[in-house]
């Protein structure tokens, strides 16, 4: 499986240029068609949105064409609300940037989360201030907790994993190191899919938290991409009590590929 269709969302925020550059590079790497979905009509409240939309489209097409990437452009309607209105079901990968509340003209802060819940397509979220010259996915870390969501995320990330120098399979488990656990079997499965995988297991002994362990792992492995399943628990529970997905959506160090 590979990414044949990638969608990148355009808005008038300052992160759009870097996001387009990153998406163009991914489309070039995976030989995918890149479609820009222009959010301006749906988020712009002034009458000059047509000019904004046209400028964004022209800029995107120039960058994509210069890179030799097959590309297209679609604009959402002003009353777009559901995932299908944002053409989210028409791709293998969606590229967005982490919401930045300080960024005027950008999309609502809950847009990536809503898209993630409703699209059925993996979502690559770039951190605010991402430098498009940095590589994505050469040394990914898959955060795996033995759930269906995490398993699906790893499968969705296979085009990255097969292309990577090395993939770290991170697990934070009270049973780790006490006998054979499922993570070794899953690592072998990913290896059969063509990924070079090492298991980076941490035993949960009650003295640390998974997020601290994950970031220690990312640092040790010099990772450039986090892969994780999202919203394994009800979203309202995450909002009330915090959760892994919210933690990952809030971190601003690395791109994260999320699947739900």
């Amino acid at each position, binding site marked *: 499986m590979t990414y044949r269709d990638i969608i990148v969302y355009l808005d008038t925020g300052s992160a759009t240029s870097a996001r387009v550059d990153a998406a163009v590079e991914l489309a070039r790497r995976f030989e995918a068609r890149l479609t820009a979905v222009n959010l301006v009509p749906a988020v712009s409240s002034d009458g000059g949105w047509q000019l904004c939309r046209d400028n964004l489209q022209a800029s995107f097409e120039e960058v994509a064409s210069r890179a030799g990437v097959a590309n297209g452009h679609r604009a959402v309607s002003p009353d777009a609300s559901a995932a299908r209105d944002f053409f989210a079901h028409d791709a293998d990968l969606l590229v967005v940037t982490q919401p930045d509340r300080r960024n005027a003209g950008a999309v609502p802060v809950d847009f990536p989360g809503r898209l993630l*819940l409703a699209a059925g397509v993996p979502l690559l979220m770039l951190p605010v201030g991402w430098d498009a010259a940095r590589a994505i996915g050469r040394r990914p870390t898959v955060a795996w907790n033995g759930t269906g969501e995490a398993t699906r995320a790893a499968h969705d990330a296979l085009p990255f994993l097969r292309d990577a120098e090395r993939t770290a399979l991170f697990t934070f488990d009270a049973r780790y190191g006490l006998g054979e656990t499922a993570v070794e079997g899953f690592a072998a499965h990913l290896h059969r899919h063509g990924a070079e995988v090492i298991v980076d297991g941490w035993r949960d002994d009650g003295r640390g938290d998974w997020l601290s362990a994950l970031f220690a792992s990312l640092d040790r492995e010099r990772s450039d991409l986090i892969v994780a399943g999202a919203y394994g628990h009800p979203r309202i529970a995450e909002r009330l009590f915090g959760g892994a997905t919210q933690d990952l959506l809030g971190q601003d160090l690395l791109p994260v590929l999320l699947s739900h």
Partner: protein
Amino acid sequence: MVVDLIVCLDSTTLDAPALLAKAVSRAAVCRARLCVLDLCAPDALGMASSPTSLEFVEDMRAAFRLGGVDGHHEMAPADPAGLLERTLSADLVIAGRGAATSPHRSGISAPALGALGPPVLIEADGGAGPAGRRILFPWRADRACTRAIHDAMPLLETADEVVLVPLDDGSPATVMRRLAGRGVRVRAEASVDDADSALAPLARRVGADLIVVGLGGPARWRAPAVPTLVARLIDDSSTALLVSR
């Protein structure tokens, strides 16, 4: 791409050999590794409760050799959580309808479908070979169907025909273009109003041997809520079912 298949069966049941044959055939086509997870209940000594299972293991090994399949046999974990965890290292889980109603173990029961990571292929009773020559795909632009397309793609690409059935007023043109672009031989049927009751008869009318459906919702908190449609299709044994979550 399918590299790891798991077939869940109870080796003491009459339909086990037929299900095994379908799984071996599918593994041979995909050049995938096949794990036979045996759901049969061990007796107090830890052995299989019936000599049939020992004969089954010998027949299984012969089938692997004949099919050129890299396969092995395992006793399935006794607890449902362990069973679900074991299936995570697979691209596709195959089960028969017998496993769904096994008197010995719950196996891949309808409620468990919602908790799995990989898609589950529930083979039809009878039939000569593995399902997937003509595939019926109920479609609407939502998360469940989008995931189902991704999960079913290895089967869609090798099918003789894929029949897309719109479930709402939306146009299937975009999804049909995407499928056609990947070499899938796809055509659209007229939309149906009541999918719960119309899909099984429609599958028989168009000669489909496999229906693809998607479940919605995250695993843990909605696992028991399998839609009526899926439960009804599981009960209808004449057509195989690929369930994606």
